């Protein structure tokens, strides 16, 4: 470009930047590895938590979050580096898809890139590295599927597996001390769903106070609402009418209407008409002969009084999700019009007992003996809202994993066993492959092995020695061995009962490889000029 009198004309916009080749690659590696290193310490049963503190002014900004969940940490971070954003993205997807392994996926992608960087420094073309990774990934996934076992969904073994998986997932969380208790609780909740994967039916209610141990699974359904004053507090054999309708003055929806009167009498007349209309509606509702009426919207005093006079218990202003759960649990239909009382039997929900209960200091409404017995409620107690939030996230993770397991049913041994086996498979494959790709396959194996290594490091154990011993055990044919993080030894996972869901691992390996490949393929980063924002 050294033409006299000519400088390279500016092609991009003023504040836009372009990085090419090595610079671009370096930038993405540094970013991705930094993000991976950041969440690395939360990995495994001895992983540490992070405090997330929002920046900026305002009251809500003082709310801090303490968490161990990779997706939550990564989601809350604002990063500038584009490669780091990719890692955050895959962690989010992992969360949506299987709900757990969000840290693993980011760390694995980071480790892959760390290994990739070394290969690039050895002057190996990124495309060769990618070619190797692809072979390795397929080999690893094949091994993963091979070592997984499947049990019949009804069998006791499967039930035990679920409890073991729940325990394993919980062991890295805050409630690890009570993991047996919670594992049992979560498994029971998931089994109630009878194979459906709709997590909405499991409600989690968080109430500060008491200890974590006071949490429990309620087989009924709890609505975080109060029964309106003046109604019965306990109803047996309830017929439930669930509605989503305006019970205030019921505005007329025809566009452009306006009340325009010229005398006080007329006002009174219209008022009376409104009242009559309300009464009419209430009468229609009464024809359904419910014993309890739940409405999503507000219920004004007048209709409330009318309903209460007829001996119907009224619950007003339930939230929408709560409504759907009530409807699902009791088999009710959500009504908005009331012109067909003859369909009474179809639209009314049923449950054996509705009562107002006290949990801690809050009044709630409990439905027991529902028609469709799928919904249930997990009541979480704990000494502070931060703890409850974290427990909530942990329980959510466990529930997701369990549902995934119920769907997929394949399980593998935990304690780093699956990663080590996959690494071993890659290394065997590397010996057979000709060409430079073999180096990349070895690198892939090293990256996989980093996961148990980091788990050891986080536990404060001598990772180099443990991992070597682990390798030897596998070589000897003890294929169910894994890391015993309580004693810092290598032990039989069968005895310790540590199992993991195969689908979670599979998704993590797939997503991490895809992300690493995506970043590896980049040789040019163009950053557009940031959009100018109006300062408020």
């Amino acid at each position: 470009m050294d033409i006299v009198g000519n400088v390279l004309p500016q092609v991009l916009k003023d504040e836009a930047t372009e990085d090419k080749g090595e610079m671009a690659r370096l930038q993405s590696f540094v970013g991705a590895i930094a993000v991976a290193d950041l969440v690395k310490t939360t990995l495994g049963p001895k992983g540490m938590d992070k405090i997330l503190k929002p920046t900026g002014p305002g009251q809500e900004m003082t709310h801090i979050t303490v968490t161990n969940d990779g997706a939550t940490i990564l989601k809350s971070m604002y990063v500038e580096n584009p490669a780091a954003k990719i890692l955050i993205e895959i962690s989010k997807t992992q969360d949506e898809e299987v709900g757990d392994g969000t840290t693993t996926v980011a760390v694995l992608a980071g480790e892959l890139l760390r290994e990739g960087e070394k290969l690039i420094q050895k002057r190996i073309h990124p495309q060769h590295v990618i070619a190797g990774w692809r072979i390795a990934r397929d080999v690893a996934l094949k091994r993963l599927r091979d070592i997984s076992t499947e049990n019949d969904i009804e069998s006791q073994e499967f039930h035990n597996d679920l409890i073991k998986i729940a325990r394993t997932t919980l062991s890295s969380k805050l409630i690890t001390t009570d993991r047996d208790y919670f594992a049992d609780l979560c498994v029971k909740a998931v089994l109630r769903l009878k194979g459906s994967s709709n997590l909405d039916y499991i409600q989690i209610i968080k109430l500060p106070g008491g200890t974590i141990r006071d949490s429990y699974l309620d087989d009924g359904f709890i609505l975080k609402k109060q029964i309106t004053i003046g109604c019965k507090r306990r109803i047996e054999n309830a017929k439930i009418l669930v509605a989503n309708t305006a019970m205030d003055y019921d505005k007329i929806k025809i566009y452009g209407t306006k009340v325009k009167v010229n005398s006080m009498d007329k006002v009174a007349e219209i008022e009376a008409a409104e009242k009559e209309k309300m009464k009419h509606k209430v009468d229609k509702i009464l024809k359904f002969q419910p014993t309890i009426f739940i409405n999503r919207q507000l219920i004004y005093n007048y209709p409330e009084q009318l309903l209460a006079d007829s001996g119907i218990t009224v619950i007003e202003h339930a939230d929408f999700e709560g409504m759907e759960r009530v409807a699902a649990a009791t088999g009710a239909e959500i009504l908005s019009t009331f012109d067909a009382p003859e369909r009474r039997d179809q639209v009314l929900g049923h449950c054996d007992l509705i009562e107002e209960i006290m949990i801690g200091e809050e009044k709630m409404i409990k439905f027991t003996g529902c028609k469709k017995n799928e919904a249930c409620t997990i009541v979480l107690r704990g000494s502070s809202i931060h703890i409850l939030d974290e427990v909530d996230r942990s329980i959510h993770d466990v529930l997701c994993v369990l549902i995934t397991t119920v769907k997929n049913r394949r399980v593998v041994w935990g304690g780093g066993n699956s990663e080590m086996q996959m690494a071993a498979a890659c290394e065997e494959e590397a010996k057979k492959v000709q060409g430079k790709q073999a180096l990349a396959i070895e690198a892939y194996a090293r990256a996989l092995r980093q996961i148990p290594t980091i788990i050891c490091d986080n536990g404060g154990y001598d990772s180099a020695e443990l991992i070597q011993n682990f390798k030897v055990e596998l070589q000897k044919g003890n294929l169910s061995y894994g890391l015993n993080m309580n004693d810092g030894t290598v032990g039989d996972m069968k005895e310790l009962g540590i199992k993991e869901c195969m689908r979670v691992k599979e998704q993590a390996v797939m997503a991490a490889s895809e992300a690493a490949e995506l970043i590896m393929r980049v040789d040019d980063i163009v950053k557009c000029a940031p959009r100018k924002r109006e300062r408020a």
Partner: protein
Amino acid sequence: MSLAFDDYGRPYIILRDQGQKKRMKGLEAYKSNILAAKAVANTLQSSLGPKGMDKMLVSPDGDVSVTNDGATIVEKMEIQHPTAKLLVELSQSQDAEIGDGTTGVVVLAGKLLEQALTLLDKGIHPLKISDGFDRACDVAIKHLESIAEEIDIQANDHEALIQAACTALGSKVVSKRKRELGKIAVTAVLDVADLKRKDVNLDLIKIQTKTGGSVEDTRLISGILIDKDMSHPQMQKEVKDAKICLLTCPFEPPKPKTKHNINISSAEDYKKLYQQEQQYFVEMVKLVKDSGANIALCQWGFDDEANHLLLQNDLPAVRWVSGTDVELIAMATGARIIPRFQEITPEKLGKAGCIKEVQFGTSNERMLVIENCQCTKAVTILIRGGSQMIVDEAKRSIHDAICVIRNLIKDNRIVYGGGSAELACALQVLQYADEVSSVEQYAVRSFADALEGIPCCLADNCGLNPITSVAQAKSRQLTEKNPRIGIDCMELGTSDMKEQKIYETLSSKKQQIQLATQVVKMILKIDDVIAPDDY
């Protein structure tokens, strides 16, 4: 800006705000334009070919996308240089016309400009250069047509189409699964293709993305997938033998467009109005129900009461269906789009074998699948992938592949890839150059050099020595009289692209050479750039 002065030393003002404008003239303008355009081509150069690299683009809002698709890269770079923008348009017109080869066209233009620069330095007039390029282009196109081969797209289970799709997908991040994705693309296109008219309506192929899973979970759904669920959680989730009522009016009381006021002045009015309003909903639902429809798809929202009435009448309904989806469903199911409730008649209903709700992942997201539509076979390709960026890139790649297959159905002539077609043309052009007796000879020769630049670039991207491998391929083409010798990018051990099965469509290659030549001619004709200074 150069100025003219009068006798008193005051400048003549010719252009408005002359002082604030920048002007470049003559050779300076040529060179600056060429350099700017080349800068863009240089960025794209490394994305060419099966081992090309990707670009990471950060949008003004900080969103990241990673892509290998030329048109997308130049579009998202937000180029502001006026000449460089021409290349952006070049890539986009290739994208609009052909759909594939968007990187190649820009790289070729860059190579041509590079050659033009040397010729300018030699003192050849720009118009002579563009004339020469023009003539060379004609020769190249003619030769391209002579070496093109017709393929039988039906043969061997559409093997040729799959191979062509694989070639298009080979350079993308999804190349690992190119065979599977290629097959999906081929099946999708053939499903909706009108082989008699040799036409494909790409609107019938819907590409829906959903993060999660892996790229290999991508699948073809014979039917339409819409990212919506039933309007009421308790409606039935599956409708067999669906008769679809496709509405573009909301289930709400009508809103006349003229401004009006209804004054309520007495209690009777009030009651009447109330009844009227109730009546509206009942009538609406009745009209739909009476027509025999068993599912209603609506572009607009529902009032709570109307929603419940629908449920009560066992009429599943979907609200807020997007405009494009409405059109697609109308096309596929033979439904007429109904703008008013009064106009619902049984003939206007669309028919489909089955409509059902399906669910993905843990996050309780549901989608609707409409299968076995009555009229045409609309299909949906559901793309999955580990992250949004991968899914987006896969979508672009599959779009490219679909375009290639469509082009092949339209015109089943192919040339071989791997730079072999360019090399063959270059040789032909070079031969022709010697026959040209005027100054244009140099330009024609340079055109050949520029064409050679493409295989050179390919070889470079694959980590081969560009000069030796191009020289080898060239000499083999000449001695063996085989125009299919190209660069062995995948290191498969053969340079014959027929054996490697690297197919590219003739129309795409032709378009590339023609478009690139045109843009270069245009740039060479600019000898004066006037622009605001701060531009």
